[in-house]
């Protein structure tokens, strides 16, 4: 099991337009260099296996495209209980398991890091072609900087409800 203080987990499929946001932020952070004790992983389109990826860390910062119901490029920080799992019981299929299911499973197993923060960015489009939209591309360094600030600030166990700075906090935040 990987051990360390903080895991930064970028999620998404770069072949699906703005779904490539997570890997793009991972790439940006790798270029900047990160403080010791921080591990960065491109988790791709990971499913339930993400539980094992996150296990053993004290803190995980997750970056992913998210349906916030806002303008493309808007972003928000939120806690996993807001990453809604719609009709999880009824529709459960291995082909559909994603971050929300992994977080639900990790919570049920009581193995999630004590601090889980999701950085969600509203996509403009998630079609069948690689490449970020201009709006989402522009927010990559913004979210990256916010992650670096979060790493630099002393972590607050039990922490704040949100770290959001760039846009309003979407009440209907929904992980895609």
């Amino acid at each position, binding site marked *: 099991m990987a051990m360390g203080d903080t895991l930064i987990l970028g999620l998404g499929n770069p072949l699906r337009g703005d779904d490539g946001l997570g890997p793009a932020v991972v790439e940006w952070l790798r270029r900047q260099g990160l403080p010791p004790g921080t591990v960065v992983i491109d988790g791709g389109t990971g499913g*339930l*296996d993400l*539980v*094992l990826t996150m296990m053993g860390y004290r803190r995980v910062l997750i970056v992913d495209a998210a349906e916030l119901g806002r303008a493309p490029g808007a972003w928000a920080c939120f806690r996993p209980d807001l990453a809604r799992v719609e009709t*999880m*019981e*009824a*529709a*459960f*299929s*291995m*082909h559909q398991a994603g971050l929300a*299911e992994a977080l*639900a*499973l990790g919570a*049920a*197993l*009581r*193995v999630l890091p004590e601090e889980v923060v999701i950085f969600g960015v509203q996509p403009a489009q998630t079609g069948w072609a690689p490449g970020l939209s201009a709006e989402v591309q522009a927010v990559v360094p913004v979210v990256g900087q916010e992650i670096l600030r979060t790493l630099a600030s002393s972590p607050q166990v039990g922490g704040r409800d949100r770290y959001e700075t760039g846009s309003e906090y979407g009440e209907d935040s929904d992980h895609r």
Partner: protein
Amino acid sequence: MGTLHVGVHYITRVEGHGHIVVDVANGTLQRCDLEIVETPRFFEAMLRGRPYTEASHITSRICGICAVGHATTSLQATEAALGIVPSEQTQLLRKLNFFGEILDSHILHVYMLVAPDFFGVGSVFPLASTHPEVVLRALRMKKLAGDLCAAIGGRHTHPITLTIGGFTHLPRADELEKLGARLEAMRADVDATVELFQSLKLPQFERETEYIALRQPDEYAFIGGTITSTDGFEYPISAYRQVTNETLLPHSTAKHTRHNRESYMVGALARFNVNHDKLHPRAQAAAAALGLKPLCTNPYMNSVAQVVEIAHCVEEALNLIDRLLVRGIQPEEPPPVEVRAGEGVGACEVPRGTLYHHYWIGEDGRITGANCIIPTGQNLANIEADMRALVPTLLDRPQDEVRQALEMLVRAYDPCISCSTHMLEVSFVGATQGNS
């Protein structure tokens, strides 16, 4: 007299979309269908006109769970058409990758999809709260299986290193050594899996049918062999059509198959019934501990046969790693290909049963025709025959129990409906509810 109308609209914890429709009026079964409503996927048409080199990569996308199985079968078909014989090292590495995928798929099915039924919960999520050690074990085992696939195939699913005649990348000896050490450590989890399934009570339901699987003289067959039936038939792979006899039915976007009887069964239970004598001793011990004996005619036991195959594949993967390390991984280039017109058939025992790929290649190296016959498609007629035998025995039970028994039956087959369409939902037809 029982009047029962069951409709399960979208069966959960299976891959893809299918419905079960049961209609019983005055104690007589009127209708019992497994409707397959998954959209046809047209992979065979996609292959036409593509260069032969692309076939394994295109067809591996038929399924994210048995992608290695599709790729391996595809390569076999192409190699048969072009007269290429892969090296021993290639065959050993393909088999190791294949065992990784069988393990991954079987662990997923027995733990995440089947086990919740026996704990009386709707899915793996409540199971994680009540039995975290069971779910953590499953995740741990699945991770190792995935890592094994990635070490050989280049990634967890949709292998990228497998190519015609060989590999584009070979694992290092130290990678294989580490995987070997982890597989040895996994034996304790395999034993715990056997113990778990010993404690679970499976429904008692027997219906004899024909069981079909590939068979080889010196091993429990997964890649190639002869098509062998418990009714005493044996065919070379090239004669697969004499076995499958595909037909179209109005209620299913997947074709049905039949051979010597109204239906036949493929998959782990069929393999066990055909090849139990070839199992590794540790897998035979697991079968004995689980009460699985040939000829087993209880379809619910398919999940138990999968547990036995988990034990087998761990041991055989260890044997393969030992052999590869003793031989040493040799740098090898795939043999040169002389493009020519040809036709070839490949067949493998993928997690859900026998998979066939049949290609026709033109003089220019482009595919002119393709036929893929998927295990779930071959099991559909047999699942319906089981339902027709099972439902009349359940007429005095509440509707929810009937629905549960039918869903568990279909789930035991580990159907992969997306693959076969070219399947789940139970509909109790009509207005009246339950039993009278």
